[in-house]
């Protein structure tokens, strides 16, 4: 054996003695099914990659950001204008947030239509839904942090709705806002959510999600399963074949982010003035638009509920059904399976339609 090979064996042995046998062997032996739907498998890793980008850029931003109403806007302005490459870090963080949520939704819908939530992967689906909620929480809390007019009023409108939750609505709103109104206390609180609470929760849920994915391997969609009744779906190794392709995708995402940050810089806007009038045309970020538009359409009162309450109820119900789909889809290859797929298409059409309407209107 060459000296280099001897050195490699020795180093491996050193780590094996301390971390135990096996080590990363499971990863090296992991296989990924290869079929015409394999391309959707990349979305999970892409979401994870974008989340990592958020963590890194977020930590970098933390070195300069100041979470008080007197300094938040100025610190972001300082970051954008005086700190070297500050514009780049902030730009990537802002764009990656949007890309992350978009990719997560794509990942969720692909898992939905490929019926990856079937037994025994129900918990994977559940933890995934929780992750999407957490990412939306990241988006909502992070949006306020620059403390500009748009963010301030979007937060005001967004947190106003919470009051409509029955029984605990008021408490929830006070908890979120850190008081009656959106103030500096809200900023501090959202900052705490954004950099501590949500990351901690997300880490735990991501770990669970990844563990479950490794435990059960990649789900093969029913249409592919039919082609290979004896279960021998062709596959390739995770390392290096799938991982290298993953890497290609991640580099592509990096390029897209760099281009977006440099060519379409994220606007800073004007510092928030809590006592100014709400500017016309305030609306939330695109991922909340469809809910925003739906609420606008609901009449003031519906049956015994207030309009907003009814809206929240609808969303709650829809969300619950969506999350419980592994248990509702009794026969994924049968009629109910097809019905559920139609519902999924309907959901996409609804979301796209409402978002477009809100955007144009």
């Amino acid at each position: 054996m060459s000296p280099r090979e001897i050195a490699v064996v020795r180093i491996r042995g050193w780590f094996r003695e301390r971390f135990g046998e096996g080590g990363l062997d499971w990863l090296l032996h992991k296989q990924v099914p290869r079929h015409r739907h394999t391309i959707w498998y990349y979305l999970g890793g892409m979401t994870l990659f974008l989340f990592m980008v958020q963590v890194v850029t977020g930590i970098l931003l933390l070195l300069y950001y100041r979470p008080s109403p007197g300094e938040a806007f100025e610190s972001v302005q300082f970051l954008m204008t005086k700190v070297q490459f500050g514009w780049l870090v902030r730009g990537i963080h802002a764009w990656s947030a949007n890309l992350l949520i978009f990719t997560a939704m794509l990942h969720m819908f692909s898992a939905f239509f490929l019926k990856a939530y079937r037994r025994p992967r129900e918990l994977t689906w559940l933890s995934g839904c929780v992750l999407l909620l957490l990412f939306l929480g990241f988006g909502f809390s992070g949006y306020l942090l620059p403390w500009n007019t748009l963010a301030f009023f979007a937060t005001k409108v967004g947190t106003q709705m919470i009051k409509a939750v029955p029984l605990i609505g008021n408490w929830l709103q006070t908890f979120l806002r850190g008081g009656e109104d959106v103030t500096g206390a809200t900023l501090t609180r959202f900052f705490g959510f954004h950099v501590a609470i949500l990351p901690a929760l997300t880490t735990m849920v991501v770990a669970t999600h990844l563990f479950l994915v490794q435990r059960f391997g990649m789900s093969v969609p029913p249409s592919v399963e039919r082609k290979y009744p004896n279960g021998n779906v062709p596959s390739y190794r995770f390392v290096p074949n799938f991982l290298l392709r993953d890497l290609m995708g991640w580099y592509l995402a990096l390029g897209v982010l760099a281009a977006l940050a440099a060519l379409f810089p994220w606007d800073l806007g004007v510092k928030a003035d809590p006592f100014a009038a709400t500017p016309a045309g305030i609306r939330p970020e695109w991922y909340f638009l469809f809910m925003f538009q739906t609420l606008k359409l609901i009449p003031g009162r519906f049956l015994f509920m207030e309009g907003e309450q009814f809206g929240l109820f609808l969303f709650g119900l829809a969300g619950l059904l969506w999350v419980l789909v592994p248990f509702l889809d009794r026969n994924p290859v049968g009629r109910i399976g097809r019905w559920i797929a139609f519902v999924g298409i309907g959901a996409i059409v609804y979301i796209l339609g409402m978002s477009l309407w809100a955007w144009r209107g």
Partner: protein
Amino acid sequence: MQKMLCILTCVLAGGWSAAAADTPKVDRCRECHAILDGPNGEAAKQFTDDVHAKNGLTCADCHGGDSSAEDVDKSMDRKKGFRGIPQRAQIPELCARCHSDGAYMRAYNPSLRTDQLAQYWTSVHGKRLRASDLRVAVCTDCHSAHGIRPASSSLSTVNPLHVPVTCGRCHADAAYMKPYQIPTDQLENYRASVHYQTLQGGDLSAPTCATCHGNHGAAPPGMGSVERVCGTCHVFQERLFDQGPHKNPWQKAGIPGCITCHSNHAVLHTSDAFLGTGSDSLCLRCHSADDAGGKVAGRAYAALSNLDSHIRQSAAILDRAERAGMDVADARVVLYSGREKLIKARVDVHALDPASIEESTAAGMKLAASAFQAGQQALAERAFRRKGLALSLIVIGFVILSLWLFIRELEGKWSRQPTP
């Protein structure tokens, strides 16, 4: 019992007189006239909104007679002092009966002036009225006769917003003013002016006819006093003009200051082109391009227009940089100071001293240049970012390509040659 009756009477009497003081005087004149048609009724209807009516006065207080009598003969009895419609020549003194009486007016509005009649006699209108010209304005022509409102009311004919139209009722009527041989284009000219625009914009302190000509003592400002009139607001310009080379020669030649260049009524927005030797130049009305005055004009115009164009250029580049996503707030603050220098220079012009103008504009040029440089830097930074992006995209593209080739190699996608 007696005591009780006494007290009762006193109380009643006190209440009665108190009530009498509170209730306005009965105005039977108005009650009857208000139901008539035509001019007879109009006056009474208008009088409801009149400030005099609101202060408890009746028709009889101006027209004489007895306002408490219902019977026409009694109320319009000449023996009771009924005057009917007062003659024009008598109107000023009729109004002054109360309005020049300081003690009387104090009971109604202590801060109202009481010198209107005295002022009026000094005015052109007053002098001509004394010379038996009944066509000139008397009190009621401007204030209206029956629906008189205080000048502060936006409906008053003498509210600053309406003063030009009120004066214009005669002064803009060419046919009416024919015997007087004075221009009748003042209102039209004024409407083109900056002063009128400011007034229309809601600034009630903007000059109207009365501001420069006086209201009751209305007369055109005499020679020598024009500058002082303009100078009540345009203090610096008057001061600088007095120090300048035009003051003495013009005074001697009987040329008024200010309005010679800026016009009296059609005071338009000034432009740097009023200076210099171009087609809009006011200087060239008297000077020629190569005499001393023309040269001064040329220098002044050059300094101002130079600074103006530099400021515009700097603003343009900052706009470009901002549109491209760069932050230029600092530079805008600098440019703002530069603009101030230009504003100051435009005031300094009135001293007609090229050295002082150039001093102001020089300071402004420095600031504009600094802002321009900041704009250039911002654009350069943007270019740098794009280059950096291009470079990183090349690297990324290279990585993606090499990965792809490597994967193909790994998976044996190249055509295999059977090894011997």
